[in-house]
């Protein structure tokens, strides 16, 4: 029996209790509602189970605001994500907003993106780009919205996050390497950088991209700690390769190794054997 529904004359204590109860349900309910098994939240596999399992949705959520920073590797990571998001949204178009015009459509095939599905918007100012992002998120017609921005004010980020939560269109903010100040409220924050293909043979035939993917922040990760694969949440940084010459549709990422923050208990015997 809920107190709110029966109390005919709400007293101060009643109201406070009621509010506390509601906050509690909201807090717990939100965690439940955004869990992977909730039908309202869709998640798209990142193509590597290690990355998927590090997220509470067991995949990349198709809503909310996400921030990816880094050099051109971050662009590549976003493009791989877009290919999967667009595929999951039955080929819905993708809006890409930035000020420059250096995105090269013929290069996107290698990521499994059909350039015909791309709408490019060029804004002169960050305000224009943020406006375009919000319009894109609210239009509900897109698979995803990407904005390349140096700076995002916390209020603007909050607006985008709310719009992206509500509409179910993920908004990805791509920030260059130089940016240090983190954006306000984001669902996930990634940092993707190029790494040299260390210790590999000089004459390696396929041209592979080597990225270091680091999940810097993820809301609701506390819920993940309660789940079974507790070991994987400690590993938040991976070295990932991607085959660039195959032109394959899905463009799978391959996790080579978790770089830092290795699991607390490594599989028995591995260190000794290695």
């Amino acid at each position: 029996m809920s107190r709110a529904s029966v109390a005919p004359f709400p007293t101060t204590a009643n109201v406070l209790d009621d509010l506390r109860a509601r906050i509690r349900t909201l807090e717990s309910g939100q965690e439940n509602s955004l869990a992977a098994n909730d039908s309202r939240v869709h998640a798209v596999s990142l193509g590597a189970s290690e990355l998927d399992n590090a997220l509470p949705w067991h995949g990349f959520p198709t809503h909310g605001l996400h921030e990816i920073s880094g050099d051109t590797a971050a662009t590549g990571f976003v493009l791989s994500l877009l290919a999967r998001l667009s595929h999951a949204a039955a080929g819905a178009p993708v809006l890409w907003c930035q000020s420059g015009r250096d995105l090269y459509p013929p290069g996107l095939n290698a990521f499994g993106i059909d350039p015909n599905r791309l709408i490019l918007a060029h804004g002169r100012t960050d305000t224009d780009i943020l406006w375009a992002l919000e319009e894109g998120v609210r239009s509900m017609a897109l698979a995803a919205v990407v904005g390349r921005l140096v700076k995002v004010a916390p209020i603007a980020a909050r607006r985008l996050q709310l719009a992206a939560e509500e509409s179910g269109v993920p908004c990805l903010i791509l920030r260059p390497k130089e940016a240090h100040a983190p954006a306000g409220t984001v669902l996930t924050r990634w940092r993707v950088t190029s790494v040299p293909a260390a210790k590999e043979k000089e004459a390696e035939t396929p041209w592979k991209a080597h990225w270091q993917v680091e999940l810097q922040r993820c809301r609701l990760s506390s819920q993940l700690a309660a789940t079974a694969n507790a070991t994987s949440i400690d590993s938040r940084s991976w070295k990932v390769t991607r085959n660039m010459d195959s032109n394959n549709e899905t463009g799978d990422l391959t996790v080579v190794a978790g770089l830092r923050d290795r699991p607390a208990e490594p599989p028995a015997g591995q260190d000794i054997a290695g």
Partner: protein
Amino acid sequence: MPVFATDRLSRLLARTSPARQQNNAAVPLVTVTSVQGGLRIAAANPAAQNAGVFPGQPLADARALYPALDVHPSTPGEDLKALDALAEACTRFTPWTAVDSIWGGGQSGMGGGQSGGLWLDVTGCAHLFGGEQALLDRLVSWLKDHGYEARAGLADTPGAAWALARFATRAGTPTASIPAGTAHDRLSALPVAGLRLDSATVEKLDRLGLRTIGDLISLPRGPLARRCGANVLKRLDQALGRQREPVSPRRPPPPHHARLMFAEPVGRTEDIAAGLDRLLDQLCAGLEAANQGVRQLELTLFRVDNSVERARIGTSRPVRDPAHLAYLFRDKIAELDPGFGIEVMMLAARRVDPLTASQMTAWQAGLDRQSQSGDAASTARLIDKLSGRLGARNVTRPEPVSSHIPERASRARPALGEAKENASNCDWSPPPRRPARPVQLLPQPAPIEVMAPVPDGPPVMFRWRRRQHHIARAEGPERIAPEWWHGTRGPKPQNVPRVRDYYRLEDNDGQRYWVFRDGLYRPDRPPVWYLHGFFA
């Protein structure tokens, strides 16, 4: 407008010097032009004409008649510009306006370069003003309010209207009109100059004793054409409606338009928005009846100071949804300058396309927030909004071009326009075994300093933006030859693209670059290297 040139000038003077405002019309004012070495009067205002000055008179004679004459140089170009602006402002009466091409040159027999004429096709517009006579009165008084003495003639044919405006009106009764079907009787009484003939022909006819149009009508046509030229007959037939006379409007009249007149001038943005809503409802009702949707829409605000403000929007597919169109206009309205107030608002659909009912339901589905994503209609609405604010050229869709030159291989097509079918018979899929392309391409290849151990081999180090990049891995070359059918057109030899050897490089930090050597290696010339793109 019999004295347009001097009216324009005195308006200008009254604006610049307050002293002139008191007795502006009373000051004799003339413009002069230099003809055959001497200065002659080009135009004289009514006050000057009363003093005995007439166009064509030498300036010295005019000065002798009236020493205090206000003399200004004649500027036909400015006059024409002002006349054109006036034709634009007259679109408040009808969308179909034009400047009379018989302007200046002394051929009209009406004082040469001092008069100015406008065509207005008021077919179907008169009832908006309460009848044809009311429209004429309103037109003349509106022009008079703005300082232009005007005469107006209304008839079935342009030729008859021209004659009426000039020869059937007086200062007291500035308007004249012919009821349909009576052109013959009414024109007969007018002088032959009303047929838009040059002064030499008028003089010749005068010598023959043919003074009125009626005299000409009664004559046998054959001898008349032989003696006076076919032009007389042509003009006569045009005036009487026996021969069609097409006159081209300044701008083609819009297929659909709506107009709103305010009793009092308005200036607030909210009022304009409210007026726009009413206009949109009106326009969209008309479009629905015609099964059409708008692609380009233009809002025109007629300000009290006789100037015009415009705002345009475009849509990526035919629309007749007032709410969506109002949204597209929202930002534009705020930027319009209402000046001292707006008298008339006009909304004109400059371009329409068929929009059937089935497409309409798709639009309604797009309005539904619960509709599934990927809806083409919602995408179109988004593109409209984005293009409205960012500009049509800044919202693009990439388009493949069949070219091997990397910077030519794709083109940005404005998303607002429709895709040209079979414009480029190629798709995005790369040819087999072609090495990958970068994700970012510099708009201009950036020159780099390169160190290569072998002259025609890949670099081991390059310097870009004052940073050294040591190369850990290199792939290539991929040789891309210029398209020979483009290369020969360059005006200078260095503009002709040369063979490029592209290399994919990875430096010690793992960054991947796309560089090329411009031209084949030649021992006598140092190789030139460029950075062109970045791999992810």
